[in-house]
């Protein structure tokens, strides 16, 4: 492994994340050799032992490419977002958590205190004193700290400026490989990077464009729960069979893997190009194709979607126009982070 510092530096970091983005990067297989040949990996906690202090000691802007995945849930996540922004030339919001909050963003429907209270009072939790995590706790030997829990989950660009967005939960490996190849070529002057602020590693249209299922003019007369269908037609559009598929509002680039496997798209690639609020677009799409005119009939059909907030904002709540449910902040005061 060359350590002469001549190669551009690479970093990958996970904030409030699950590790799936790391696995997706590893799943590029042999392509990772190209990453290794062209970059010096200087910080990647899952894989090697550089510590926070080492990042602090690096020169500002010395990391050429930083893939930042995970949402901003606590103070440590925020600190690392700011630190890596300073130290990096190109900062990519990598994966759904960093670009739009992803599934942990659903916590924004509740007050943060409730999130903590729930975890520390489950049916198996032995906590008669009602203890909660203390950010600074005095032990006999000294005070120890854990990072403060934020009021809401935030996306990376709600904290620092972001250069590129790579959607997906996780981004599919063939897309990651393509992006790495592009960056390597750009470093050698053989290709140009897209303009800053662009979404990379994905299409500009929707999942429907990649889905092989047969589509007709839609006249939805009911929404069903997927487990209640005795025989699904593997060749017909899932939405037309009443299964609430998020394909119509979700960005393509994944290859429509879930509908191909018989499961509805749940929206992990985020909004299509130019969409301001993912949930609003999906609401519009579903409403447009419902085949009913009378309010009572419409309501009956809509009863088939028992959890609209989750259905329409499953991955995108933190990045949406409202960003959170009302319960996440109180007394009309803005949430303090």
């Amino acid at each position, binding site marked *: *492994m060359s*350590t002469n510092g001549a190669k551009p530096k690479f970093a990958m970091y996970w904030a*409030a*994340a*699950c*590790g*799936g983005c*790391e696995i997706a990067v*590893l*799943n590029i*297989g*042999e392509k990772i*050799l190209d*990453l290794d040949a062209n970059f010096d990996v*200087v910080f*990647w*906690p899952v*894989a*090697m*032992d*550089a*510590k926070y202090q*080492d990042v602090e000691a690096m020169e500002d802007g010395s990391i050429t490419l930083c893939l930042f995945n995970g949402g901003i849930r*606590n103070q*440590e996540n925020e600190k690392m977002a700011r630190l890596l922004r300073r130290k990096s030339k190109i900062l990519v919001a990598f994966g759904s958590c960093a670009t739009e909050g*992803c*599934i*942990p963003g659903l*916590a924004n*429907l*509740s007050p943060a205190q*409730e*999130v*903590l209270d729930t*975890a*520390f009072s*489950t*049916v*198996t939790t*032995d906590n008669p004193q009602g*203890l909660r*995590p203390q950010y600074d706790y005095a*032990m*006999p*030997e000294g005070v*120890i700290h*854990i990072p403060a829990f934020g009021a809401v989950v935030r996306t990376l660009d709600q904290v620092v400026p972001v250069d590129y967005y790579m959607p997906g*939960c*996780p981004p599919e490996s063939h897309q990651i490989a393509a992006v790495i190849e592009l960056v390597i070529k750009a470093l050698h002057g053989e290709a140009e990077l897209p303009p800053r602020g662009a979404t990379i590693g994905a299409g500009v249209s929707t999942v429907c464009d990649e889905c092989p299922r047969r589509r007709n003019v839609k006249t939805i007369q009911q929404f069903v*729960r997927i*487990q*209640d*269908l005795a025989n699904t037609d593997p060749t017909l559009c899932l939405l037309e069979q009443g299964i609430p598929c998020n394909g119509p509002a979700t960005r393509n680039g994944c290859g429509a*893997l879930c509908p191909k*496997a*018989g*499961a509805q798209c749940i929206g992990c690639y985020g909004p299509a190009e130019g969409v301001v609020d993912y949930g609003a677009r999906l609401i519009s799409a579903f409403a447009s194709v419902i085949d009913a005119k009378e309010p009572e009939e419409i309501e009956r059909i809509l009863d088939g979607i*028992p*959890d609209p907030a*989750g259905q329409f904002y499953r991955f995108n709540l933190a990045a949406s126009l409202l960003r959170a449910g009302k319960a996440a902040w109180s007394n009309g005061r803005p949430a303090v982070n």
Partner: protein
Amino acid sequence: MPRITIDPITRLEGHGKIEIFLDEAGNVANTYFQIPELRGFERFCVGRPVEEMPLLTNRICGVCPEAHHMAAAKAADAVYHVDPPPAAKKLRELLYSAFYVTDHTTHFYALGGPDFVMGPDAPVAERNILGVIHKVGLEIGGKVIQARKYGHAVVEIIGGRKVHPCTSIPGGLTKGITEEQRKEIEQMGRWAVEFAQFSLKLFNDIVLGNPAYVDLILGDIYTHKTYYIGTVDANNKVNFYDGLVSVVDPDGRRLGKYAPHEYTEWIAEHVEPWTYLKFPYLKKIGWKGFVDGKDSGVYCATPLARLNAADGMATPRAQEEYERFFSTLGGKPVHQRLATHWARLIELLYAAERWVELATDPEITSPHVHTVPTEKPTEGVGIVEAPRGTLTHHYWTDERGILTKVNLIVGTTNNYAPISMSIKKAAQAFIKQGVIVTEGILNRVEMAFRAYDPCFGCATHSLPGQMPLRLTIRDAQGREVAVVER
């Protein structure tokens, strides 16, 4: 008190921090292993439809989403009181076995393995997967990539995607497999069995063939006598997907076996206010603190625990290795935590053999993979063995199947107490008055947690070996007395 802070701990999944406090003599007074993260699945899954749980809980962990997917699927089946058709259960277990191969492979070759294969004091630049490859040959790197590739290919064929599978629904699966796909899966499985045997041979030659490493494994520093739990089938053999959870005491005596719906009688979680994670313990014994022994409710749930808690392995080659393991290490149960690396490879072999077994099952290509639930949804528990421990999902729903309450006890969580104890014991053994704290010393402390594979399998190769770390050791007045860098 002066302290050494390791932040973040590395080569595992997730975030963690170790604080090591030194007394005036320079010995370790105490250590604290803190988990600084919490995302709140138990809260924000409330209000969601139960059929989404195999998809939502995938995102608890992207390294072992398959584990959450399966636990959630089984819990959702239980909520609806529906029994999936046999082909669906076999397909789920087949996916799960292939996943196990990928996960245990990455842990051994890139996470825990380098400490062993290269040695705990090897130069930092070599003590990683690249060093392993240089030592044992480039061919190995290719094999490791292939093992992961094959395993994830099976996950994608049956589960729809390589990461965050999507095909499990209450009552079964959204689709089955074709004969062509079955053949492909079988072929990859047979290769995986050979790879697993190769890995065990590697361990045998490089680790067990080295007396210094054997001393390390058998020594007291990394040894804890605790309870052990793991899922077993009807014959008390290790099973990752289904069965009852067997609990054995530090002498190896079986305390009992519990079914998923009985877990609340066995497991409780202790709270400390200086960390976001809780410490599960055995309810019947009680929480007595971070201590070993029969009177302490601390238990372990790892590959080592599973082998201790079972009577054997369900496939022939793995069973041979199981017997050799215990006869080499002096009988059951084995308490040396570093032996977990070996136990993990035996599980790797079992997973590969089970992969082939299921891929050649006559029912596996059956198109009948879903039973429509007919009963009202209420409450259900699903348990599987995640690679790093017993995973429990417990859901309560309303009459529409919308979640009203969720309880999760996740794989590594089971081991939070024993990991904390292992870190402290190692720190106390290696950091002492008069000892110059080198990075090799610090690595030996980190090795204490790595044996548990705290959730993540890492790069297959090609990562730099620099492990930069800077310690500032201060005296009681806060003056800097030493700076150690690596």
